């Protein structure tokens, strides 16, 4: 019952060993003196009395040892000794130590690096007050192809933004203490050097209070600001530094956005990360009050804003969800035009990382498996090493060492190895983390913050501990099993070899199996990436540079002004050397999408199609073939009849495969008629994959309208593309110069080649695939080293047998063949186990794979063949040692 107290006292005493030591020496001495005195009293001579006393005492040293054990911490003393012993042992076997340390550092480092990503993206609390209570709120439209007339910019197939008209209803729910809205916007920032496009957010006045973050300087928005008062803005710390040099107070600063002077009323703290920044590269630098127009306040099908809400105290996500869905059903009945809309919510963090969670978890598991293989290899090394120390063990047992003590010593040695390996691993992990952060796709929110924090360090320590346990336990108990009588007998040199081989065979099968699991995953992912790259885009993305030129409405109030701007810009760029073709439009391929409802011919039913306003040079610039009918030309302008081109999917999807030429589309029953005059090839304009990333993107019906007729349809022109003879460098500058010569206040943004846009889209897949392949290769390499080790060891243990066989006339070839045959059996067993495990676990990869089944037979055959050949190769290489056995030497020794 007083155990803790005793431990405390002992721990305290262990800290000052000199006092304790002198005390117990003095006490034993004093006891001895008493004994001597007694013996003298009984009549012995002083010398005889001392001898008798010493005999009674049973030895001064032993007495002190007993006392020391009771008083101090025997375990800690032993630890001290064992740590020193372990370090000495390890230093005497530099080859073994280096191999073990490298293997462990690799395993632990990789785990630390991946965990630090997981930590930054998934575990660290979001930078808001009480972030666990924040939920993302959105609306789902059931069957979005049947959206009523209103145009909707849909990103996900089902999930859409929130209609602001619904927000007051959501805010009334008792489960939510506040509901705020935000929307990404861009503004042209002028008056501060080179004009630039500022990434911004329009937010409701309660946005910052909902997140629980206040401006570092000034104030947040008030209800008056959001009612449309004088123009005000809150800016980021970075912009405050850049534009104004970061003075400590506001002092009536202003910025010009889209030509309008805004008062700066607040500056956000430097660490503030706004919601629309999660998973984006652009940093939000301006916040503007969100002002709703009449449409926004009443139209329940105008899905315009993102929403975030804070759960009321004590309310669970589930009950909030139930309340919201009940309300949503009621609203759907009350407003039939929004009858397909249902609101949904999810914890904010889960919502932000939903796209990358599987990737990270799969990588964490993969890297855990690599560590497992590393542990198996080190365990194998240790077992072999222990075997060399069997005689030493036997002697120690014979001299009375306890088995517990020997096991303890082995465990300490494993711990020392693991800690040293862990320290090296931590360093490696830190470097790797920096590299991974640089390579990580921008879709991983918060990944930039990854690094070695307390959680990562604790994780690394736990990994080190588990690692030591994993690779140290077997060898430790193995050492304890040494039978001194056997081990000390003459000719006992191969005792235990059988045991070791059996156990090491088990280890070998295990590591081949783990390598097989990882290789299967790596091949699946690589094949999936290859399949992805084979998907036909329908246009030629090579050597095309595109840029956005968002013309602000105050300077370019109508379509004519915008058209004139782009026509002049096109003309100037076409004269630039190296330019083959220039095109403009509202949205260019890989740079966004615009879908709308329309009616075809006399059919009153609304259909959904993509709409693009394009220049006549568009199809030539992107390499899209005109298949039938005519292309757009300069006669298609304002005043001439409205015409359009459509893609083949239009004919397939909306006209039952009939020739679309001559059919008429309208964007509404009362809108002008547009006659289809030609058919162009299908284009995967959003990229190769759909939103899930598991299938090729579907081609939706597309209508191409001449840019010169955009006044018929409100599609604001805003993008320009240039096809060059190759090497887009310098072209970006040419676009900038051309735009500046037309309007010095006009910024251009998102200057990217189409290939860069494509790479961004597949960045996450490429990231996860390269890491997985890397881990699989490491595991593969370690497994081969393991195979080599087992076989080489087996050969060295059996050199007597081999020598005998050679002496009896066996050929070296035969012996190598036998060894390789046995190796092949082991490797094959590992492959079978591994493939079964891979087959069972590959379904977790389903959501990461593109158009390839997790049970893809080619992958499994490739894994098995590759591992078998490499395994037998490694075994064969090791078995060549057998051919160097000299029968005379071996049999003599």
């Amino acid at each position, binding site marked *: 019952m*007083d155990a803790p*107290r*005793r431990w405390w*006292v*002992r721990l305290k005493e262990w800290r000052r060993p000199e006092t304790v030591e002198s*005390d117990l020496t*003095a*006490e*034993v001495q*004093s*006891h001895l*003196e*008493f*004994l001597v*005195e007694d013996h003298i009293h009984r009549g012995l001579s002083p010398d005889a009395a001392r001898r008798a006393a010493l005999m009674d*005492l*049973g030895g001064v040293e*032993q*007495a002190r040892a*007993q*006392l020391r*054990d*009771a*008083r101090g911490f025997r375990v800690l003393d032993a630890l001290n000794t064992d740590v020193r012993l372990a370090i000495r042992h390890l230093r005497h076997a530099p080859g073994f130590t280096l191999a073990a340390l490298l293997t462990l550092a690799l395993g632990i480092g990789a785990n630390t690096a991946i965990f630090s990503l997981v930590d930054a993206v998934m575990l660290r609390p979001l930078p808001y007050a009480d972030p666990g209570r924040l939920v993302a709120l959105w609306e789902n439209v059931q069957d979005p192809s049947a959206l009523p007339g209103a145009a909707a910019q849909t990103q996900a197939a089902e999930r859409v933004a929130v209609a602001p008209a619904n927000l007051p209803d959501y805010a009334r729910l008792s489960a939510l203490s506040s509901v705020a809205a935000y929307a990404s916007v861009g503004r042209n920032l002028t008056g501060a050097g080179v004009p630039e496009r500022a990434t911004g957010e329009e937010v409701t006045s309660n946005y910052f209070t909902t997140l629980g973050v206040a401006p570092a300087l000034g104030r947040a928005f008030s209800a008056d600001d959001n009612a449309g008062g004088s123009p005000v803005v809150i800016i980021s710390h970075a912009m405050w530094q850049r534009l104004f040099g970061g003075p400590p107070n506001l002092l009536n600063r202003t910025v010009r956005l889209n030509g309008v002077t805004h008062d700066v009323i607040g500056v956000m703290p430097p660490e503030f990360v706004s919601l629309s920044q999660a998973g984006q590269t652009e940093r939000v630098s301006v916040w503007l009050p969100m002002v709703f127009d009449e449409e926004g306040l009443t139209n329940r099908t105008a899905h315009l804003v993102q929403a975030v809400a804070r759960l009321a105290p004590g309310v669970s996500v589930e009950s909030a969800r139930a309340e919201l869905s009940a309300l949503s059903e009621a609203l759907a009945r009350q407003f039939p035009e929004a009858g397909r809309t249902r609101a949904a919510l999810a914890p904010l963090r889960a919502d932000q990382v939903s796209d990358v969670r599987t990737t990270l978890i799969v990588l964490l598991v993969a890297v855990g498996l690599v560590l497992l293989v590393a542990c198996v290899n080190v365990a194998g090394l240790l077992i072999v090493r222990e075997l060399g120390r069997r005689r030493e063990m036997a002697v120690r047992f014979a001299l009375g060492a306890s088995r517990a003590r020997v096991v303890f010593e082995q465990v300490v040695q494993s711990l020392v190895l693991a800690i040293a390996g862990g320290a090296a691993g931590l360093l490696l992990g830190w470097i790797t983390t920096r590299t991974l952060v640089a390579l990580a796709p921008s879709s991983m929110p918060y990944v930039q913050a990854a690094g070695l924090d307390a959680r990562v360090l604790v994780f690394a320590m736990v990994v080190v501990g588990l690692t030591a346990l994993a690779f140290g336990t077997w060898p430790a108990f193995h050492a304890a099993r040494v039978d001194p009588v056997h081990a000390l007998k003459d000719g006992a040199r191969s005792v235990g070899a059988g045991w070791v081989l059996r156990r090491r065979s088990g280890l070998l099968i295990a590591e081949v199996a783990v390598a097989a699991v990882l290789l299967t995953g790596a091949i699946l992912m690589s094949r999936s990436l290859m399949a992805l790259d084979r998907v036909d885009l329908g246009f030629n993305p090579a050597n095309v540079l595109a840029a956005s030129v968002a013309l602000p409405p105050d300077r370019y109030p109508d379509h004519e002004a915008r058209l004139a701007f782009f026509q002049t810009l096109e003309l100037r760029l076409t004269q630039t050397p190296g330019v083959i073709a220039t095109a403009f439009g509202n949205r260019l391929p890989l740079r966004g999408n615009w879908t709308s409802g329309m009616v075809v011919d006399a059919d009153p039913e609304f259909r959904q199609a993509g709409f693009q306003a394009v220049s006549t040079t568009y199809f030539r610039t992107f390499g899209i073939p005109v298949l039938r009918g005519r292309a757009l030309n300069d006669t298609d302008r304002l005043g001439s009849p409205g015409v359009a081109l459509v893609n083949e999917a239009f004919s397939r999807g909306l006209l039952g495969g009939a020739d679309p030429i001559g059919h008429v589309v309208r964007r509404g029953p009362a809108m002008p008629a547009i006659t289809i005059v030609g058919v162009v090839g299908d284009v995967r304009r959003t990229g190769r994959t759909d939103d899930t990333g598991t299938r090729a993107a579907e081609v939706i019906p597309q209508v191409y309208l001449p840019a010169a007729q955009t006044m018929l349809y409100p599609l604001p022109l805003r993008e320009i593309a240039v096809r060059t003879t190759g090497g887009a460098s310098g072209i970006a500058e040419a676009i900038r110069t051309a735009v500046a010569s037309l309007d010095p206040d006009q910024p251009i943004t998102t200057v990217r080649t189409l290939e860069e846009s494509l790479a961004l889209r597949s960045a996450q897949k490429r990231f996860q695939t390269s890491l997985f392949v890397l881990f699989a290769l490491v595991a593969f390499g370690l497994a081969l080293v393991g195979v080599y080790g087992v076989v080489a060891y087996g050969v060295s243990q059996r050199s007597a047998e081999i020598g005998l066989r050679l002496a009896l006339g066996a050929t070296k070839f035969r012996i190598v063949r036998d060894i390789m045959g046995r190796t092949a059996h082991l490797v094959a067993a590992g492959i079978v186990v591994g493939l079964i495990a891979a087959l069972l676990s590959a379904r977790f990869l389903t959501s990461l794979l593109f158009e390839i089944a997790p049970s893809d037979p080619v992958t499994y055959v490739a894994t098995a063949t590759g591992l078998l050949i490499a395994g037998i190769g490694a075994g064969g290489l090791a078995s060549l040692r057998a051919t160097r056995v000299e029968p005379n030497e071996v049999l003599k020794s």
Partner: protein
Amino acid sequence: MNERTDVLHGTLALMVLRTLQTMGPQHGYGMARRIEQVSGGRLQLNQGTLYPALVRLEQQGWIRAKWGTSENNRRARFYSLTARGQRQLAAEAANWSRVTSLVGRFLEDPAGDA
């Protein structure tokens, strides 16, 4: 640490505490002699048993040790009972009589296993 030693430790603690209660502060050697004497020579206390037990009692806070001088002017570590030790002795003594009387009943009463 087998069972026999544990039982011995338990009774030894009781004997040490009781000795210190009756004799007052005492050094290890004196205690060993005293216990030997009280037991009528049937209990020969090895120093290897006694001192570790004393250390344990001290760590538990039941006794405290101080260097002092014996009656014949020899330096020795004198042990004395603490207040916690007093309470522990009372509790252990009561427990001991309970256990012995209980065990005694089993040994006396043959009907116990009838």
